[in-house]
């Protein structure tokens, strides 16, 4: 099995159809497949163990992804935002690699790695030059299509491996071949080193939806491209959506009448943000996607109908689904388990386990799958009576107070219901008496008075119980998020350690 098949089929079915628009150039599926075949020969000739992309999104990303696939070498998109020391360590772990992109930085950080260096332009030129007369030979290698380094919050980043069979299982199970209309276009603005950046390329190509690539997210440019290219579909992380809406409300004009669907994921969507978006885009279909690197992207989704039903409902349980990640894909199995591995019924919080073809759960160092093939996600969550999945933070984020497990999510949900609180986070803080206790950081909504500590404590005590009452309360201007919209809880914890 080889994911190159996806591009080959698109090129066979519509060789002259435009598949990618990037930096003013329009690539047909035929040209993309030819360049990927050329890239495969370049990669094979270089004799490297990995193909590392150290660059923003460009045509080089899909050509390197599919070229590496054909050559049987793992594609490793690296996070160019990492600090020198961290990036240098990752470069050493993939040496010797074909490094595409910022060659000066790769040379400076890992000079003795034996890497073959290509600027973006040099790589594209070499791939296109080798396209004619390319062998097109499919090499199996280790069967690994992509290797993605996790962000590594506590230890060194883990090298998550996605096999051709995982990625093909995901695409063939969720995307109909050539199902897009010829006018459909997908705006891709997530970084190439994120799993969503890879799955967006594959699902767009297999459905034959033209990719409109934004090299790095910027809200005004996103709006301009969406209007100029008559984009029909887009994926954003919540922080991107917030910035797009801000610019629109600030008067930046863009004709988004072609925009049929917006999918979002990658971090928690604040309820008031999605409600603002639903009001601002009444004709647009919203889909919330939940997935992990180790699961080849989406494993649960809240579709457009779910959004509309929840938004329009006065039933609190139905309305609450706007805060869920929807239902598991029909192609995977999902369970909530307690610490002893016992499967929990609806309504009870535990760790999310998944199993299916798309689920890799495999790292370069070890596989995290259990004997029956289940992957423990380390995400905490619960299912409601109708099978909607609600996330409750990382299992590692659980606050252990005097032996009692407290999920930050339940405290945050109560705090967020206070009219003066825009956002909140609960973390474990050191406590002499309890080992760990609850600390909260809150952002006050503009124009509101700061609620007193006593008022917040009383709110938690009344709605939950006394063990959940925060020992430490901090008011901050904003919460720390990474560029993918993930809340950096460790930074909040560090804030309480220092003071």
């Amino acid at each position: 099995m080889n994911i190159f098949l996806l591009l080959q089929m698109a090129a066979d079915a519509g060789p002259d159809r435009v598949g990618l628009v990037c930096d003013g150039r329009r690539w047909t599926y035929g040209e993309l497949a030819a360049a990927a075949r050329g890239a495969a020969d370049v990669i094979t000739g270089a004799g490297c163990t990995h193909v590392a992309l150290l660059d923003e999104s460009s045509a080089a990303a899909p050509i390197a992804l599919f070229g590496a696939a054909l050559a049987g070498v793992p594609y490793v998109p690296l996070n160019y935002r990492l600090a020198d020391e961290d990036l240098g360590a990752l470069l050493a772990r993939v040496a010797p690699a074909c490094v595409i992109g910022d060659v000066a930085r790769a040379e400076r950080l890992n000079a003795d790695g034996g890497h073959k260096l290509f600027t973006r332009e040099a790589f594209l030129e070499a791939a296109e030059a080798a396209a004619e007369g390319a062998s097109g030979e499919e090499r199996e290698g280790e069967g690994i299509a992509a290797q993605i380094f996790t962000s590594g919050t506590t230890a060194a980043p883990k090298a998550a491996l996605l096999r051709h069979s995982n990625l093909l299982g995901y695409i063939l199970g969720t995307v109909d071949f050539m199902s897009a209309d010829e006018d459909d276009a997908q705006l891709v603005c997530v970084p190439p080193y994120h799993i969503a950046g890879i799955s967006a390329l594959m699902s767009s190509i297999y459905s034959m939806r033209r990719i409109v690539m934004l090299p790095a997210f910027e809200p005004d440019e996103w709006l301009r491209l969406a209007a100029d290219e008559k984009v029909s579909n887009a994926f954003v992380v919540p922080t991107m959506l917030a910035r797009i809406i801000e610019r629109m409300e600030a008067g930046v004009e863009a004709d988004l009448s072609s925009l049929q669907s917006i999918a979002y994921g990658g971090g928690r969507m604040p309820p008031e943000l999605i409600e603002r978006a639903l009001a601002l885009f009444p004709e647009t279909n919203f889909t919330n996607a939940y997935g992990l690197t180790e699961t080849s992207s989406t494993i649960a989704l809240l579709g457009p109908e779910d959004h509309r039903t929840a938004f329009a409902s006065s039933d609190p349980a139905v309305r609450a689904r706007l805060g869920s990640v929807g239902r598991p894909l029909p192609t995977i199995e999902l369970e909530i388990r307690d610490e002893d591995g016992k499967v929990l019924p609806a309504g009870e919080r535990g760790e999310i386990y998944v199993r299916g073809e798309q689920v890799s759960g495999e790292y370069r160092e070890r596989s995290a799958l259990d004997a029956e093939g289940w992957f423990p996600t380390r995400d905490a969550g619960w299912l409601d009576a109708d099978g909607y999945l609600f996330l409750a933070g990382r299992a590692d984020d659980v606050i252990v107070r005097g032996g009692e497990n407290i999920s930050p999510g339940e405290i945050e949900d109560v705090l967020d219901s206070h009219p003066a609180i825009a956002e909140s986070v609960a973390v474990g803080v050191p406590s002499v008496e309890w080992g760990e206790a609850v600390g909260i950081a809150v952002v006050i909504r503009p124009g509101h008075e700061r609620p007193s500590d006593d008022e917040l404590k009383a709110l938690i005590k009344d709605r939950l119980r006394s063990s959940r009452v925060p020992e430490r309360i901090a008011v901050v201007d904003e919460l720390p998020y990474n560029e993918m919209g993930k809340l950096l809880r460790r930074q909040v914890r560090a804030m309480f350690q220092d003071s």
Partner: protein
Amino acid sequence: MKPGTKLKSAVCDTEVMVIRGSDASVECGGAPMVDEKPAEPGALDDAFAEGTAMGKRYVDEAGSVELLCVKAGKGSLAIDGVILKTKDAKSLPSSD
């Protein structure tokens, strides 16, 4: 048949990739599928001439064999003379 194996029809343009395999021998257009196309295509059996569609997945009744059609043709896919059914992809909103 190992997953990833590509098979070609001996009587039409159909090509498939094995997604899930067994020891069964797959036929197309009434003739066993082959690794390499013959120089001259054989005759298409009218009883197996419904045609294949690119991108469709085909499964047997037991679900032990699954094939992806990567090139369309005039023949029907079958195992032991029983025509394979198409597997409908789940209709999901785009999430990437």
